[in-house]
């Protein structure tokens, strides 16, 4: 019995040793993509015109908050931005030069794309 317990312990430890962190690369067969939440929208100015190169940053409003990757996500020429995030409740803000727009909130779900347009003053 004691030997069986030891074998079980070794098995558990071997699994822990793997740690789920096998090296992988873009030369390997791609893993299946996971359904994250997607938030996309257009940043406009006070005249309603799209604004490019706006830094769009989310903040998790959940308790406890979800970790937010510190990527630089900037709006494109049409003012459009896209974030892929862990599903949850977020507040987004848009900043360019010395202007920061009012934050807007969105609650997201896995596999769903929510539209959240942002405004710069």
């Amino acid at each position, binding site marked *: 019995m004691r030997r069986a317990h030891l074998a079980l312990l070794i098995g558990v430890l071997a699994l822990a040793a793997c740690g789920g*962190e096998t*090296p*992988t690369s873009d030369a390997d067969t791609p893993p299946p993509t996971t359904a994250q939440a997607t938030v996309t929208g257009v940043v406009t100015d006070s005249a309603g015109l799209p604004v490019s190169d706006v830094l769009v940053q989310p*903040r998790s409003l959940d308790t406890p908050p979800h970790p937010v990757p510190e990527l*630089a996500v900037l709006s494109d020429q049409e003012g459009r931005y896209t974030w892929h995030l862990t599903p949850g409740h977020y507040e987004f803000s848009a900043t360019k030069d*010395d202007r920061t727009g009012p934050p807007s909130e969105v609650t997201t779900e896995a596999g769903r794309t929510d539209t959240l347009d942002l405004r710069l003053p």
Partner: protein
Amino acid sequence: MALASALLATIGLVSTASAGTPKGVELAASDTGGVTLSAAPSHRLRGVSGYEGAGAPSDVTAYGAQRVPSGHRITGYSSPTGDDLGVQSIIGADNRVRVNPTTSFPASATVLITRTVSGVERLHCTGWMFGASLVLTAGHCVYNQSTGWYTGQLKFYPGANGTTYPYGSCTAATLRSNTGWTTDGNPDADYGGASLNCSIGNTTGWYGAYWTTASLNGTSTTIQGYPGDKAQQQWTHTDQVRESGSLRLYYDNDTVGGNSGSSVHTVRASGSTGCAGHCSLAFHAYGVGSNGHNSGPRITESRFNLVIGWR
């Protein structure tokens, strides 16, 4: 592997001292003594020192890099007033300091990563040289759970300084990460890298790195990289480890989107065991979390061995 090794050592089945040592890695028994097989094992530490490089080259093409003309446009946000963004990953006052010039180590080995989508190249992340042709960064800078690998979209500019690029640019031959990130999407495993089509690290130098089983609480942490509000300029801030998780470190360095992938490093005295000089402890990845600190995956024994294998 670290957990298993420690536990196996504790129950007396194997000696952790017999673990294979990757090429070029200095093995240090511990900060506190040798490895023991007792119920209260000593802390272990292993690492590799960095290389300060050969200085700014007269011709980057000698290292396989592309020349980048001064003024080359990378789209990014800039704050002419330097106003605080008010984002949550600036903790308290914004205490970041600009690094200028960027041709001294470790600035030279700190890498601006851009991503080109629909023909427009934009600031994306930060990375750090860890060999002649290897850049390490956050996993989410090379692989997105929804869209997959960023193959063919990334460019790497070591030591970029606003609109000047003293080390040119390189592209990736291979993007790298681990299944903890690519399959499981585990933030604790959010690290990756890129093997470059150049050997620019021979002139930029590269960071060292080490792992230890000891707590790192109180160890100084410097994050040096390319925040999205600073127009491709390199900025730095120093704090300290506030919490040591087994797989993640927590600190209060001021960061902004774009700092992802920066080395979280400390400076160790010449002759220190394992790693001396600028030594990475973690990969910066996340803004303020549930405990009020910024964070990144910690360099553990298995992660250290994994990224050494990418060299």
